[in-house]
């Protein structure tokens, strides 16, 4: 755990607020753009705002142990509502602001909320539409009064009015302020600070209870890991109900006195980021993907000179950028060129994305394509990956500066221990961020937390030769081949999908002798290739069956097999045989979910003859399947597909792998 007097003294969020008001009093704490102008609150102003709100809430009857729902976009006053509730010993419960009322009802009911602090009329209406299901709800407090003036005010209060009554009470009775400080002093690190409901892909959401120690220590450790100081700033634009935002924009900000900027509206977040120029930034991979697409689209429209300049220096960046970033040796010529490129291309690009002041950016949540990842790093953006979950107060592993490998999620964070369970390959961890328990769900707590204090992540992975963790799949999805070696279909599919030619892949092998794959080519990328190489085709099916396309994909699969061979755990999952499907997998045909995830079982049934052909040694497979057209009519597509045999490589010992890198 942590040491040092300051941390042990300031072991809860409200205590940190008092400290920040004291030592960072005149430094900016929160910013928000309002009417087109950035407004700033210093830490001492935030302290005053929170105190007024807390006393006002106390007057309305909020007391220790109550739960307070917080619903809205990232707004400074909603963050203050967290602290105000916590200062009274109440427990904030943030909800996803875009949930519909019915989805909110479960969490509000389960968390037994007695107060709700909401952003505006939209959220207030949602809560009021389900109010009969919430017998414990006493008060509803809203930030933006627009549209709410006409509502009967009996149990509805404007946040500003609550603060005003708080200020008036404080002015009338100075003892209140003292009593408030005493309440804060009575708070313990082991008290529950927040309940975060995990969205959960299966079953009902679970309320993860985090203590003050979880949030404060995780925040402080993360600040230490990346050397954040009160000069650092970030933009809070991801849902407040998500643990990441809670730890980054709240835990880390309070622990380290960082500045948090809230965008004017969700739509303006990108523009606002450019204006703020944060030094710390988090985004899921798709955000980076969109940025890359936008840059590429705009470069396509640029003049010839600009385009040539961009292409040339992008080449330089690919060659030297990551090495420069990691402080590795780079030939002098490249270093000079990179410096020139930084002035002409990379700097302006970073500015365009709002990354001019960026020191650290993280991505997590899903696998990020290595090319995408390297693109940003080559431009001099210190993009890193981390691996975490709500139950860990985010941080399990992070990539340290200078040790960034695209396929891994990094090393255990400060004070974090991880181990891989024998057999299942499941990753377990111990850390200062380990959650207390699930609210009113001891059964789930018991199945997640082992008696000796380890937490099951539910993910399977392994630790590679560099001591970095690699996640391969959800533990329950990891299977076995007949020879007992690990078969990780999603891992292999994701790796295949990182190749631009591959749009979708389905890998089979559970309970079989070897792994095989169905592949969908990417019509955009392969079509582009066809155009450039004068390959004429009339349909997806024709292009998918083109011998040159087959060869191209074969090279990719071979590349993948070589790479898998270097990873001892998954070496058995190398693709022995594959075919390119004659039609694109489509949600209309039930082959994908509406969120574009592969429905493996359904596909296995539907294409059973193809799977049979993959395993019986035939060179050609044929099938006829029913398809649904966009207008709902049905038809059949028949096809003959060549099956390609691939070479597999012996699993390499870890030492050789290092040499290969």
């Amino acid at each position: 755990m942590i040491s040092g007097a300051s941390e042990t003294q300031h072991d809860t969020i409200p205590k940190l607020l008092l400290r920040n008001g004291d030592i960072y009093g005149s430094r900016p704490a929160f910013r928000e753009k309002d009417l087109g102008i950035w407004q700033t609150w210093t830490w001492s102003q935030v302290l005053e705002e929170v105190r007024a709100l807390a006393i006002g809430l106390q007057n309305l009857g909020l007391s220790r142990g109550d739960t307070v729902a917080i619903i809205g976009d990232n707004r400074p006053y909603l963050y203050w509502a967290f602290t105000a509730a916590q200062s009274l010993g109440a427990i904030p419960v943030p909800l996803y602001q875009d949930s519909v009322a019915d989805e909110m009802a479960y969490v509000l009911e389960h968390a037994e909320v007695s107060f709700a602090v909401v952003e505006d009329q939209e959220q207030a209406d949602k809560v009021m539409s389900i109010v009969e299901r919430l017998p414990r709800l006493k008060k509803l407090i809203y930030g933006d009064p627009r549209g709410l003036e006409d509502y009967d005010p009996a149990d509805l209060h404007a946040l500003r009015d609550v603060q005003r009554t708080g200020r008036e009470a404080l002015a009338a009775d100075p003892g209140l302020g003292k009593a408030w400080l005493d309440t804060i002093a009575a708070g313990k690190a082991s008290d529950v600070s927040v309940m975060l409901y995990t969205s959960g892909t299966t079953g009902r959401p679970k309320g993860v209870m985090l203590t003050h120690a979880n949030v404060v220590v995780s925040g402080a450790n993360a600040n230490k890991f990346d050397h954040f100081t009160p000069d650092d700033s970030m933009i809070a634009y991801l849902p407040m109900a998500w643990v990441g935002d809670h730890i980054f924009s709240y835990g880390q900000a309070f622990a380290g006195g960082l500045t948090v900027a809230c965008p004017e509206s969700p739509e303006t977040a990108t523009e606002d980021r450019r204006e703020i120029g944060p030094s710390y930034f988090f985004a899921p991979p798709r955000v980076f993907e969109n940025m890359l697409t936008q840059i590429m689209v705009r470069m396509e429209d640029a003049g010839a000179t600009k385009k040539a300049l961009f292409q040339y220096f992008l080449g330089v960046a690919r060659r030297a950028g990551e090495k420069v970033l990691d402080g590795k040796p780079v030939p002098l010529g490249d270093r000079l060129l990179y410096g020139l490129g930084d002035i002409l291309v990379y700097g302006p690009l970073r500015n365009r994305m709002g990354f001019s002041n960026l020191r650290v950016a993280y991505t997590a949540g899903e696998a990020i394509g290595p090319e995408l990842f390297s693109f940003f790093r080559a431009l001099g953006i210190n993009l890193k990956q981390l691996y975490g979950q709500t139950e860990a107060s985010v941080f399990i592993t992070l990539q340290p500066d200078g040790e960034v490998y695209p396929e891994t999620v990094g090393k255990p964070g400060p004070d974090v221990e991880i181990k891989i369970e024998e057999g299942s390959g499941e990753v377990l961890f111990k850390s200062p961020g380990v959650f207390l328990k699930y609210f009113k769900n001891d059964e789930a707590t018991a199945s997640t937390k082992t008696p000796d204090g380890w937490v099951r992540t539910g993910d399977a992975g392994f630790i590679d030769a560099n001591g970095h963790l690699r996640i391969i799949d959800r533990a329950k999805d990891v299977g076995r081949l007949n020879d007992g070696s690990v078969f990780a279909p999603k891992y292999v599919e994701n790796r295949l999908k990182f190749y631009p030619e591959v749009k979708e892949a389905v890998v089979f092998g559970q309970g079989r002798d070897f792994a095989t794959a169905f592949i969908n080519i990417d019509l955009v990328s392969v079509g582009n290739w066809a155009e450039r190489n004068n390959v004429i085709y009339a349909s997806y099916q024709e292009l998918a069956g083109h011998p040159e396309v087959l060869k191209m994909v074969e090279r990719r699969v071979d590349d993948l097999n070589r790479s898998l061979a270097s990873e001892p755990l998954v070496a058995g999952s190398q693709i022995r045989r594959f075919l390119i499907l004659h039609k694109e997998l489509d949600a209309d045909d039930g082959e994908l979910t509406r969120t574009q995830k592969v429905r493996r079982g359904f596909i296995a049934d539907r294409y059973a003859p193809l799977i049979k052909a993959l395993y019986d040694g035939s060179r050609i497979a044929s099938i006829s399947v029913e398809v649904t057209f966009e207008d709902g009519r049905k038809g059949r597509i028949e096809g003959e597909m060549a099956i390609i045999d691939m070479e597999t490589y012996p699993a390499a010992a870890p030492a050789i792998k290092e040499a290969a890198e």
Partner: protein
Amino acid sequence: MSTDTSMPLAPVATREVGVGTAAARSGARSGMLQNAARAERPRVSRVGDVLLAVENVSLSFGGVRAISDVSFDIRKGEIRAIIGPNGAGKTSMLNVINGFYHPQQGAITFKGEKRREMRPYFAATSGISRTFQNVALFKGMSTLDNMMAGRTLKMKRGLLWQALRWGPAEEEEMRHREVVERLIDFLEIQHIRKQPVGKLPYGLQKRVELGRALAMEPELLLLDEPMAGMNLEEKEDMSRFIITVNQHLGTTIALIEHDMGVVMDLSDRVVVLEYGRKIADGTPDEVKRDPKVIDAYLGVSH
């Protein structure tokens, strides 16, 4: 919060609305917060005296008679719809009201004063602003600049001051900018504040146009098919804005609209034109039942 965001939207009067919030739609409820639904107050309290009267107006272009002998009035604080089949003279009627056309016969009385022939410019200074059937914005200018253009009539500093910018002109611009920024906030168009409007989707352009009309702080707002070409969500948004403008700014609104659902939900009174003549006038319910209106819209069997 450091600024009072609700200032220009001070409540004037309230009423039950058809389009709008979940709370307004759901009926009786139990438990806490049960009285939180919108307070229902009689409509009469909101609607005041006659603001604008159209008396026996006829308008022709050469031999074409666009409007023949039409009379109706618009009361202060109401939402007044003008409907009718294509070519019924609705837009001509709006053009007469805002002074763009001058009728050959009849009279327009606005705020108790009989209107003489004048330029639309003067109609604007007298407190009438409008939006157009085909969005009429400055396509190359940003949303912000378009809306600032709506404040032009309220800017008092002359060209010299404006050119200098520094000093009083700057102070004036900041004041107007604040009004516009509040409208941007109200219309939820912050994200397109600096974008050229020509590039925006149609629904947003309509919203900007409404913003520009509102920037004039009109007493009477004329909307020519504010929801044409919009999808359902955009229509709901626009309805919400129209209701809020009417309720909270107390602006009187006259609108032409073809979506009958919207018209019947939004308006207090509806006037129906056909071939330039008034065939019905009354509350939405009265108009809906009027056989002449049904014939005009559905045709008559022969």
